[in-house]
């Protein structure tokens, strides 16, 4: 399990989905959190992905995922 921590729900284990490369050199990496489904690029500004800097209003509570409504229920 990776040590990359999700900026949105603060859990670890983020996956690396893609690396942007130029001339064989990695320019950035796109990560995805398997817990809260947040995706981000590690080159984004701190206001969007900085842990402790990003607005707390948009945090997801990883311990309480049941609170999020399922759409299109029969």
């Amino acid at each position, binding site marked *: 399990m990776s040590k990359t921590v999700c900026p*949105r729900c603060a859990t670890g284990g983020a*996956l690396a*989905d*893609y690396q*942007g*490369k*130029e001339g064989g050199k990695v*320019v*950035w990496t*796109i990560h*995805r959190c398997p817990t*809260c*489904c*947040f*995706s*981000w*690029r590690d*080159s*984004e*500004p701190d*206001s*969007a992905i900085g842990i402790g800097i990003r*607005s707390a209003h*948009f945090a*997801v509570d990883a311990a309480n*995922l049941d609170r*999020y*409504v*399922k*759409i*299109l229920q*029969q």
Partner: protein
Amino acid sequence: MMQDLAKQSRSITSLRDFLELLGDAGQAITWSERVMPEPDVRNIAVAASRDANGAPAIVFDNIAGYPGKRTAVGVHGSWDNIALLLGRPKGTTIRELFFEIAGRWGDAAAQISTVPEARAPVHECRIESGINLYDVLPVYRINEYDGGFYLGKASVASRDPEDLDNFGKQNVGIYRLQLQGPDSFTLMTIPSHDMGRQIMAAERTGLPLKIAVMLGNHPGLAVFAATPIGYEESEYSYASAMMGAPIRLTKSGNGIDILADSEIVIEAEMQLGERVLEGPFGEFPGSYSGVRKAPIFKVTAISHRKNPIFENIYIGRGWTEHDTLIGLHTSAPIYAQLRQNFPEVTAVNALYQHGLTGIISVKNRMAGFAKTVALRALSTPHGVMYLKNLIMVDADVDPFDLNQVMWALSTRTRADDIIVLPNMPAVPIDPSAVVPGKGHRLIIDATSYLPPDPVGEAHLVTPPTGPDIDELSKKIRAMQLGALQ
């Protein structure tokens, strides 16, 4: 010149054709200076949106980490671009564009042609294994707190899972898609939308639901396929009829009719019963949607043209491309529906936030008549959920000219001549709702007074108006531009 423009418009078959036409008219630019996916693409798209009348489409071809890939934004981002799409010159007024669309409503025939798959440009390149959407799509975060990377301008085609051979029941609609890893995405919809119906039908019956996601399409499709027409009417036929031009279809690898000239088509299958977290997403009212659990689709194949252009949209707090893209085509159906009962209605402006505010001009048949028309507007298909604030003006006021609307508000509105309808249905993402899905409606009667009202209309100044003055106005603008050269 007008005829040439109309002919050019009808000959558009693809995004590439349209970008070329826009480029020739000075309405598309290539941004070759190196940009970061975030925040640069968003910043540039927002800056362009400030010019609702004249903003060009922007094609980025030097995005860090995406060598050789291209992204287009703002294709429908200004009234001048919409005018060129409709075969009218730059500088055509919003009112003229409105009547161009309203005049086509219900008055044309569809022309659908079929291209064999082997000859369809969209199938030039095909990926069936080792799928990674990020290999093909130079995505970027549209708004800062979006939950991920979104496809904001994807036309999604699907067949009714219970009636696979029915062309009419095939649905094409724009739904927001969030990438959920290299080969998956979520789709957001509601039960009343055609796609919502199909998802629920598939899960009820256990039948597979296959879709084809078209990106970088014929520019008429995004304008006309977003319209809520009857479930059994084909959006392709409708878009072709409204454009007055043929639409070329082919088959996707998973058996769905797709545009033969799209840049990229992603084939996918819904994972029955599965939901994963989706959102937030910066939506058209200018606020974020919440986080919810949405259906997830697994990608089975990707087709694309050589050197494809990934088309996306900036959407968020207005004015944005979303407003120009759907504004007129939100207004025209309300106009047509109102005119069935009330031919006194002379124009409908529902450009603002998908019609959360609407301005309707009407010839008052009797005192208070405008209010009757307003109540009818609330019961049109779009009005049921969207028309929250209605401003009623006389026929001598152009509802697309906000200076004139403000004049009517200033001189013809009495503070006690408004109606508030409490606890009505509301669009769930309207941030002013009392609770999501329920809110109040407002009708402002800014029309003039008539008998039996004891106070009649004041004697008005009647400045010259009409087509002659419109032409003079355009001539002055052209002379001004000429003076610069």
